């Protein structure tokens, strides 16, 4: 394997411009995710109209009602997603955020450009039963569309909600989709489209070892400035052996919708089978005893003579 490459995302300088999302769509030729009738119903009081050139009934997504987010989450066509997290502190006696901050003028706005983490121990790659998910020479995790049969096991395994299945009408219909770390660009010595487009260098691309040094220095600087809550997520081996797309966060991972301790699926297999094998052994013994028992009741002497009809 060649040098491990990846992303270091400094959330403190993300301005939520979504240039990364647009660049990703453009380079990977991803279509816009159109609103479904369900989306339309969910936005009370809004009735989005089709834009010029769109087929009737197809609408661009309305605002989700979740801050400035209009794509909602990562999906089969959104391989990057900028999260807008409105954080407010509740104090004693305050039951709701509206009570705590009725004018919404004390919110802390955390932004984070989410993407596949290209885990060193990738749960999706581990469980994939067809071998469609592979590791590239850049240590990134890549889905081979012609091999994937759409079993969705990778979706259950990913702790970050990254992988989604493409619709049956899309290219690569019914197969698993996610960020490729712009594998095609990397093979030609180019920077991934999102990192290239990021105007604030919130998303930085490079050799993982270099990025880790750079990120640690940034954390030290932030601590020196008094931001003691600054921390790295996924830069060391604690999270799935390390993430090749790691983050500088300003709060607990859960605040950003990231799990503190994601699980490696294979670690559950042995305990599960130890319990089931022990249970099977007990069941086999009791089953054998049940079937072996010589019944001394009134039926045993001559069971057939006591058969009865219904």
């Amino acid at each position, binding site marked *: 394997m060649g040098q491990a490459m990846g992303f270091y995302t400094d959330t403190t300088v993300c301005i939520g411009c979504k240039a990364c999302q647009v660049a990703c769509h453009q380079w990977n030729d991803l279509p816009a995710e159109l609103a479904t009738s369900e989306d339309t119903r969910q936005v009370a009081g809004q009735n989005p109209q089709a834009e010029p050139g769109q087929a009737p009934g197809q609408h661009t997504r309305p605002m989700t009602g979740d801050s400035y987010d209009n794509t909602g989450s990562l999906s089969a066509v959104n391989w990057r997603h900028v*999260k807008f*997290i409105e954080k407010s502190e509740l104090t004693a006696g305050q039951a709701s955020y509206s009570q705590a901050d009725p004018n919404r003028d004390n919110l802390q706005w955390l932004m984070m450009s989410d993407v596949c983490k290209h885990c060193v121990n990738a749960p999706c790659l*581990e*469980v994939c*039963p*067809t*071998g469609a998910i592979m590791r590239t020479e850049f240590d990134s995790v890549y889905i081979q569309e*012609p*091999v*994937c*049969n*759409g*079993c*969705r*096991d990778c*979706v*259950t*395994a*990913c*702790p*970050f*909600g*990254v992988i989604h*299945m493409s619709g049956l009408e899309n290219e690569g*219909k*019914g*197969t698993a989709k996610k960020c490729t770390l712009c594998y095609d660009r990397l093979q030609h010595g180019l920077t991934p489209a999102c990192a290239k487009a990021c105007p604030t260098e919130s998303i930085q691309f490079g050799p993982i070892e270099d990025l880790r040094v750079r990120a640690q220095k940034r954390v030290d600087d932030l601590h020196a400035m008094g931001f003691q809550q600054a921390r790295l997520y996924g830069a060391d081996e604690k999270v799935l052996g390390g993430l090749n797309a790691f983050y500088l966060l300003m709060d607990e991972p*859960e*605040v950003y*919708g990231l*799990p503190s301790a*994601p*699980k490696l*699926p294979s670690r*559950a*297999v042995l*305990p*599960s*089978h*130890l*319990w*089931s094998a*022990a*249970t*099977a052994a*007990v*069941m*086999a013994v*009791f*089953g054998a005893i*049940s*079937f*072996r028992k010589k019944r001394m*009741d009134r039926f*045993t002497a001559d*069971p057939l003579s*006591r*058969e*009865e009809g*219904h």
Partner: protein
Amino acid sequence: MEPLIVGDPHWRWYIVFYFFLGGLAAGIAFAGALAALFGQERLQPVVRLSALLPFPLALICTVILIIDLNRPERFWHMMLQSETWIPMFKYWSPMSYGSWILLIFSALSFLNFVAALWGDRPGLLDFLPRLLTRGFTGTLFQILVLVFSYGLASYTGALLNATNQLFWSDTPFMGALFFTSAVGTGISALILIIMLRRRVNHALLADLETADNWAMGLELLLLVATLISFGALASHLLGSIYGITLLVGTLLLGLIIPLLLHFRPVLGRSSPLAAAGLAIAGGFALRWAIVMAAQGVYVYGR
């Protein structure tokens, strides 16, 4: 706080039916192998039924699994690497080794099915019943059936354990729970079929009920252990339709009442029928509730 968004795998009705019917096939085969290896002569009807039923069920399971794939024409990628045609096998991935277990279980069931249909007739296949039921080869065959029916009944639980989904990955007991449920529903299905016949051998029925009691008793213990192992998450489950289904459909109607009916047959001759029917429905409720709960309950900041 942002919700922790784990992807929705869309494992819905096909998977529920696969888990249920696969469990039923495995449970019947497990009970049949035990009866063949250790049973008295009176258990021969059980041995014959357990030779006939699992293969058609396994066939249905295979079809269901293929239909459930987004790209069914690529189902064989589970078994062979599409580029090299080298067998595809990951012992650490339950879906991978589970595919092989289903294949081998189906092959064993097919042999058993053909042998049972052929019976004592002379001719081309008269060696098969002898080979599979008598002597060393017969014992070996039944041990293989026992092992692979255990594998089929339990790997589906391990498959759920080996994820990052809510509830599925929060207990180590899924495999054991699914296994006991498979054996319980399998024996209940055998009781149901035997009861529907015109003549009932009561000693045989008592043998099956005793074994069923052990399976249901173990399942009851494991269901409680599973709920306890969820810890604080249990309240989220029990407050949902899935938790209520588990408590009412599986625990009460599918386990406690059938056990009571076995010990106190208050419904007379209908008691074994009612107990078997409820136990089978309870096994289905268990699969539905567990499969759907992870995809229908959301817990913030988990």
